[in-house]
């Protein structure tokens, strides 16, 4: 078996073991350590690449080794399909705050004043001016 064939065999062995219950023993065989199964698999694949680089100077094989780890990881670890960054969500969330802030008033107390003479409302629910008798909210014509 040539080196590329041997690499393929290592890859198949590691990926299959990663998906099954025998992973811990296989990881130990390759001297792979890591906090998660994924880290251990990456360490094992990297060890294979390091070993293979010492056996060849063939540019085609070296190019294959450059992508060996990432391709094997993609095959072993399914993608979830979500995008990592959330920054756009937060950027969009605050996009209109300036406009709304400009429309809001910080004033919390209001007095209804007669549009005719300026006298204030004096009785609850009575919207006729006490002074001039015109409706408080009606515009002059």
């Amino acid at each position, binding site marked *: 078996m040539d080196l590329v064939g041997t690499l393929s065999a290592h890859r198949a062995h590691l990926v299959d073991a*990663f998906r099954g219950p025998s992973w811990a023993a296989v990881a130990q065989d390759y001297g792979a350590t890591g906090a998660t199964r994924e880290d251990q698999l990456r360490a094992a694949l990297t060890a294979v690449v390091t070993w293979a680089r010492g056996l060849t100077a063939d540019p085609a094989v070296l190019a294959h080794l450059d992508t060996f780890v990432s391709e094997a990881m993609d095959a072993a*670890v399914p993608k979830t*399909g979500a995008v990592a960054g959330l920054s756009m969500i937060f950027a969009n969330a605050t996009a209109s705050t300036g406009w709304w802030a400009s429309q809001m008033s910080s004033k919390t107390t209001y*007095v209804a004043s007669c549009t005719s003479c300026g006298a204030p409302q004096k009785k609850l629910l009575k919207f006729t001016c006490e002074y001039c008798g015109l409706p408080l909210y009606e515009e002059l014509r």
Partner: protein
Amino acid sequence: MSQELIDRWTVFIEKVSERLDAIIQEAGQGVLAIGRAHREDSMPLNNALTGLDHRVRQLEERIDQVWDDKVEGQFSSVGGKVHDLGIDMTADAKRTHRQRWERAKASWLSTLANEAKPLALAAEAEPVACQNCGAPLALPTRRKTVSHPCGSCGTVNQVVPPAIVRAYFGAGCVNLANAASLPHRHAVEDNRVEVDRWSRARNWAAETVESMETWRDLERKVHQTYAETLASLTGEPIDTGFVESRMKHFMKYGLDMNQAWVKVHGRST
């Protein structure tokens, strides 16, 4: 063969779970920052949560998609309990992910509400002057909009609560009450799954009346906890009408539809 299948599906679910962890970790900092920057305006926070909800739903949809397109056929071909196990693993993953996300959101919103409370109480205590003569107004409350005649000049002042008071005693207290009732809501969900699997293991036996009574009590606990927590935070009486309206809906479209229940307890309405 079946163990390998189960292991591969477990790995996939763990990957989605890690993805959710990453979203929760990253989103938490952003949500708290946006909430603190806009304490008086809930819109930026709600905009952010809507976007984040969508991102989390994408994970759930991804589980469904992979299960439907690639995995269920394999579990189905093994059949029997392995197929049931695959269905359960999928449903459990989606449910636990959603519950984790809801707990994370409740935690952030509770933090923001608790931080807003002292600010709201300070704003509530600030004196308000008549807009006509400047005399201090003796307002009955600062938590609601009131039309109040000045004791000095008689001018009617329309006084709205400060924005931070509206934010805390409105959305803030509701968020805290929702957070308090959330474990009970999740208990209802978990109970229904448990009952469904109990039934499946007994050739789809009918649910017992005792089990339905437990369901009813768990459901009431959700609404009762919400109403009691909200009342304790706002100082208002417990809204028993709210609890009963929710239970009426639950009974009408839940237990009253079950003949075994009706035979023992009769219809609720």
